[in-house]
């Protein structure tokens, strides 16, 4: 009905519509519009949905792109990281000094470091592919599989358990075996499943050798300590024992005997202590040289004096050859140089039997820019040294062998110390020897040419009036004189004995200087001297008896026979020249005579010194030894008293001997205070008495203001030398 009415209404014009028809039209229009609006909304919603879905798709595509890019980055980064890892691993394995071998689960090699291929002489790893560890290593040696180490390795592989063993591996016949620490380690992946195993061979040969050397050194040191203990206790025992005997004895001769033994033992003990101290300094790198200008021949003279007594005891022949080209004075550490020569000579004397021969030679190897290279050697006809012993000779704490130590004694440090001294002098030391055929110890050393232009004595003598006759049964001595005569250009005849000498005198006429050996077959030197005097020799003619022996016992008889003087062997050119100068009336002196105690009586009378020493016995020793000199000595027991005593009367003292380590105030502080006390304090000579003789300790003394130092134990000769140096002496009045 409504539809009909609607249709009818729609056919009419607006002005012909009835009210009801109009209403129907409006309602339907509203419905139509609402429908369209709804449709529009639906379309809009659909459009939004479509847009949304398009956006979702776009986002999804974009996300896919992002994910793809991210994954590509991940792949690239992983690839580069992997490459980097591989590169480092390659570098590590190619350059590893350890042998690393990777095995699969069946113990077949899958990888090894290059060092393994090199050591094993394998050209290409491919040749090892598929081979087991045992197959490969067995090719080197079947023997090694008997070793415990390899056995344990195989057992660990079977049990798949880690193990660490030590094996000795010889790679080929041309190489020495090497010791390895081998670590076998089963490898597991992240989830714990087996991935094979790893072998790491670490070469410990060097470490083992070093360990063994250290153990040997430690053993040597222990042996040395034990030996040193013996070396020190033995003389101490003698000192203590002899002291007890002397105290108990009423016989003067017995007491003198004991004192002689005590002196001998003390010197031996001091030598041992000095050796140990020197060695300690060397080990602590505190061993230094103190170069001074010195007379070379005089130094050798002093050295021979030290060994002469023992040479004479063993009736050995001892010769000294000095190259005339060696400068008169040198710049170097004369004491250390003397120490080396003394050590070599002492050994020569010790290891050469009675009546054997010892020769000390000194030559100038080169002189370049003021630096002299000396070559010194000591040759003997002793027991000789085997090649094996020679290799150990210069090592610390080792003598040739312990048997030598037991038989011949000694610390075993002398050569090690000598080597160090020689090396510090820019030289080297060596030995040439065969067992049973003697030995030659030689060394080179550098020293500066002395600045002092002192002419040697021999250059000072006018030789043209000399007429010399040398008489000795030893051809060597006769040759020596003739060589010296040729060098110095003076007339010199020789004779091999007393009778021959008389014939020469008869033939050639009198001589003004005769050197005659004491011990000769047939006519001895004393008898020859008598015959020369009886033969009408000029009273001014000089007859010198040359001997290695101590002539104290025959001095009176010799002088009565006409002997003018004595010349000790070995002979030195300057000693000979000394007598020649006397014979020629020139009275030149080779060396200043060492003072003897007997010559010092009252020599320091009227002089006064201050002695600061806390140890009573040390004070007593100084007082007693200096008593004959009549020097006045004021004693104090510490540095504080020294300062107080000095300040009470500074003008009273000419010198101070200052001990270093004292209670209340030590020597250094006391010195500083005295130096600061005024004019007298600034000028008074203060000599340190110190057991510390390291260079830095001496430097401390000098820094504190001390003038000089004396080492302890005190050498009396040195004390006298210091007194002579620092006291205001009238030498003519004081000398004997």
């Amino acid at each position, binding site marked *: 009905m409504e539809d009909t009415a609607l249709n009818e209404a729609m056919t009419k014009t607006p002005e012909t519509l009835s009210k009801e028809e109009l209403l129907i039209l409006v309602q339907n229009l509203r419905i139509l519009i609402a429908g369209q609006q709804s449709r529009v909304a639906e379309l809009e919603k659909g459009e*939004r949905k479509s847009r949304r879905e398009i956006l979702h798709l776009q*986002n999804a595509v*974009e996300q896919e792109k992002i994910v793809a*890019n*991210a994954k590509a980055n991940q792949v690239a980064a992983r690839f580069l990281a992997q490459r980097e890892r591989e590169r480092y691993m390659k570098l590590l394995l190619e350059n590893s000094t350890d042998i690393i071998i990777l095995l699969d689960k069946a113990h077949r090699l899958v990888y090894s470091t290059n060092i393994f291929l090199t050591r094993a002489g394998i050209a290409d790893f491919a040749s090892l592919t598929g081979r087991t560890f045992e197959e490969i290593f067995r090719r080197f040696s079947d023997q090694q599989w008997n070793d415990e180490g390899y056995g344990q390795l195989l057992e660990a592989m079977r049990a798949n358990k880690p193990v660490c063993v030590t094996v000795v591996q010889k790679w080929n016949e041309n190489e020495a075996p090497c010791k390895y620490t081998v670590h076998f380690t089963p490898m597991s992946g992240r989830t714990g499943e087996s991935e094979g195993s790893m072998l790491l061979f670490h070469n410990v040969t060097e470490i083992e050798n070093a360990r063994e050397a250290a153990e040997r050194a430690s053993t040597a040191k222990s042996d040395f300590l034990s030996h040193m203990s013996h070396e020190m206790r033995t003389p101490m025992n003698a000192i203590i024992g002899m002291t007890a005997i002397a105290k108990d004895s009423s016989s003067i001769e017995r007491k003198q005997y004991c004192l002689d033994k005590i002196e001998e033992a003390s010197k031996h003990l001091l030598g041992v202590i000095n050796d140990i101290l020197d060695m300690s300094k060397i080990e602590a790198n505190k061993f230094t040289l103190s170069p001074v200008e010195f007379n070379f021949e005089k130094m050798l003279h002093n050295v021979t004096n030290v060994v002469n007594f023992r040479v004479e005891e063993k009736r050995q022949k001892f010769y000294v050859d000095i190259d005339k080209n060696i400068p008169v004075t040198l710049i170097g550490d004369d004491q250390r140089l003397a120490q080396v020569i003394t050590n070599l000579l002492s050994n020569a004397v010790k290891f050469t039997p009675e009546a054997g021969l010892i020769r000390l030679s000194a030559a100038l190897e080169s002189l370049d820019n003021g630096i002299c290279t000396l070559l010194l050697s000591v040759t003997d006809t002793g027991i000789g040294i085997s090649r094996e012993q020679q290799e150990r000779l210069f090592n610390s704490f080792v003598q040739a062998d312990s048997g030598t130590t037991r038989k011949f004694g000694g610390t075993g440090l002398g050569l090690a110390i000598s080597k160090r001294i020689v090396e510090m002098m820019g030289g080297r030391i060596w030995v040439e020897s065969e067992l049973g055929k003697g030995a030659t110890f030689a060394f080179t050393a550098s020293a500066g040419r002395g600045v002092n232009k002192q002419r040697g004595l021999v250059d000072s003598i006018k030789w043209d009036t000399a007429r010399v006759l040398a008489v000795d049964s030893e051809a060597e001595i006769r040759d020596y004189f003739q060589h010296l005569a040729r060098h110095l250009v003076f007339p010199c005849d020789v004779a091999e004995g007393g009778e021959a000498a008389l014939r020469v005198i008869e033939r050639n006429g009198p001589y003004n200087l005769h050197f005659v050996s004491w011990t000769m077959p047939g006519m001895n030197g004393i008898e020859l001297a008598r015959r020369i005097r009886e033969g009408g020799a000029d009273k001014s003619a000089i007859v010198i008896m040359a001997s290695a022996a101590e002539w104290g016992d025959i001095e009176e008889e010799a002088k009565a026979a006409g002997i003018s003087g004595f010349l000790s062997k070995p002979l030195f050119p300057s000693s000979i020249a000394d007598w020649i100068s006397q014979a020629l009336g020139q009275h030149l002196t080779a060396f200043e005579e060492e003072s003897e105690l007997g010559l010092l009586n009252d020599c320091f009378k009227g002089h006064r010194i201050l002695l600061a020493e806390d140890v009573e016995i040390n004070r007593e020793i100084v007082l007693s030894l200096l008593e004959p000199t009549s020097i006045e000595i004021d004693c104090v027991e510490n540095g504080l008293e020294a300062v107080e005593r000095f300040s009470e009367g500074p003008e009273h003292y000419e010198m101070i001997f200052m001990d270093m380590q004292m209670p209340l105030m030590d020597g250094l502080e006391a010195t500083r205070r005295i130096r600061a006390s005024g004019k007298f304090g600034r000028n008074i000579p203060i000599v340190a008495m110190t057991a510390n003789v390291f260079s830095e300790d001496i430097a401390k003394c000098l820094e504190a203001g001390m003038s000089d130092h004396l080492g302890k134990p005190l050498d009396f000769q040195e004390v006298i030398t210091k007194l002579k140096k620092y006291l205001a002496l009238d030498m003519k009045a004081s000398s004997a």
Partner: protein
Amino acid sequence: MISMYTAYTRELDNIDKAVEELLGQIGPVALKKNSVGLLNCHSDFLEEGIAEAFCKKLPFDVIGMTTMATADQTRFDTYGLCFAVLTSDEVIFTTAATGPLDADNYKEEIGEAYARARGKLPGDPALVIAYFPTLRDVGGASMVTAFDEICGSVPIWGGLTAGVDMRYSQSLAFRHGERVIPNTLALALAYGPVEPEFVVMSIPEQNIRESKGVITASDGCVLREVNGRPISDYLEDIGITIGSEDSVTLPLMVDYRDGSSPVALSIVIFREDGSALCSGEMPEGATIAPGTITQEGILGTTGKSLESIVQYKKNGLLMLPCVTRYTMLAPNQTDEINLVASTIAGRMPYMMGYCGGEVCPVRDKNGKYHNRFHNYTFSACIV
């Protein structure tokens, strides 16, 4: 005690239908004295007005954020709206939102918003749930640090908004679903007997590059040079070609070398001068190592997280894993969601949304919580 209920809809075309669907799931719930709503949704739901219409029907405050993909124990979808209500007789809830944040005002704005919400409570809250905006000039770590100072280190859990794409387009946080303002922060405070637990897990060790680079030039969150080379050159050296559009796919593990565990941070954007704004502090001397996001890594860390979550006997689970995890799972993007569903189903209600950065406290060795910003993590709050 807090109870939690969830509702979910995929309906985008019909507002009424969507609202009805949601109300049909929430309506029967016996709400307790105090309630607050949390809403995670695709931005379409804001655009279509569905979120607003739904929130208007609710008698309590709601805060929300856009996420990429959402899920609850019934459903999941990339384009979905997930709603959770926390309700309790003992716990009081308040909410607030800031104005638009930028580098100059974020501290002040956050402070004022917090003060408004806090002012309605008798005391300090026990938990803050916050949805942060993703900004181009302020890193997430900076905002978290500021908030931590403002609230006195009350545990803060939440995340940065995620958008429809990896450029974070149309990412928003909002309150009541209304007055959608860009760059706003929405927060909810819970006062009372709340003892939340937190789980957060990052990239596994094996997914982090072994060799590390040293940061040699930086300025706060702006990374300039690594190993003396500009950051882009450094990345190129290690085989990575990347720009701002996909910078979030590259995690950077940063070791601050102060004894704390390394953290995963992201590059927010590459700036015109070649430097990179990162989501956290990049101090000079710290080391960085690029990581990779892999399916294995994602599912591994999620699995471990879920293993610890199921130990707790609680009433609700909120999860905000990182959006990059979702993206990098392609083409199997629902793997993580499925793993959650299979592990948690039937144990407790849960709400999950992929966000643009995670805010979750971590415990120190003494058990004390410290608020931290994270990237690339699986983050959960158990209430």
